[in-house]
């Protein structure tokens, strides 16, 4: 084992610690908004560490296959450089997409007022209600879901007229 392989192993084991604690946090956190925290942060750091450890392992193979006078493995040298490039591309892609997906999930959960998220409860609140979800913000989906009621399908006014008569 060379220095690069030992460093790669250390990075991968650190990534393992972050991945496992993130999964345990998602399983054991009490409500939805606290579950976003381990799922969003520790997964991003864990994939960064593990993929960087794999880059170090591939870098050791690249050094082994370095073309010299008595070692003509030019095609393998290109192959290992290609692997390192793909790992860097994959890590950059995950660094962009994973926090974006977490942000989209949290925004969708915030805007969905019909899902009862147990969050920020006072002791005298009823069970299953959310105080944050009662605050109307711009872009709330409560209004756009309601289509314009036609004369036939307007059940509420029909029932009200029957009650009046």
């Amino acid at each position, binding site marked *: 084992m060379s220095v690069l392989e030992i460093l790669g192993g250390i990075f991968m084991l650190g990534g393992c610690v972050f991945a496992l604690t993130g999964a345990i946090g*998602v399983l054991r956190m009490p409500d939805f908004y606290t579950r976003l925290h381990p799922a969003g942060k520790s997964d991003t750091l864990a994939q960064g560490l*593990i993929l960087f450890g794999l880059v170090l392992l591939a870098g050791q193979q690249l050094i082994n296959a370095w073309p010299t006078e008595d070692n003509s493995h030019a095609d393998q040298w290109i*192959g290992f450089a290609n692997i390192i490039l793909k790992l860097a591309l994959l890590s950059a892609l995950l660094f962009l997409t994973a926090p974006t997906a977490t942000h*989209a*999930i949290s925004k969708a959960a915030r805007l*969905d007022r019909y899902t009862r998220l147990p969050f920020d409860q006072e002791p005298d609140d009823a069970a299953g209600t959310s105080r944050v979800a009662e605050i109307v913000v711009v872009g709330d989906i409560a209004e756009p*879901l309601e289509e314009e009621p036609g004369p036939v399908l307007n059940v509420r006014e029909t029932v009200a007229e029957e009650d009046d008569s």
Partner: protein
Amino acid sequence: MGHVMGHVMGPGLAVASVGSSGHSPTSYVVLATCLVLLTGAVLLLIRALRGPTVFDRILAVNAMGTKTVVLVACIAFLDMPRGNPSFFLDTSIVYALINFVATIAILKYIQYRRLS
């Protein structure tokens, strides 16, 4: 198993393989990483099956997808000196893109009840 294969195939392939022959200690590190990622995926699957709201399920499935991407990239390095990890990394990149697009599409469908 490795000794038998090396003996049968002869020295022709031993010249072609660049790294040290046999299982290096880094293979065991990569294997341990794969097992830890599988354990984390099982824990996230429990949350996805149990989650009270639909957003818990989406969150757990998204995190499982990220773990699967890293797992495929680790499987590529299990047999590093002999195998060719390039195809596994292509699969991993495509899976990362599909995972992101699927999460956004499911969220948009839940939010607006349509995808347009």
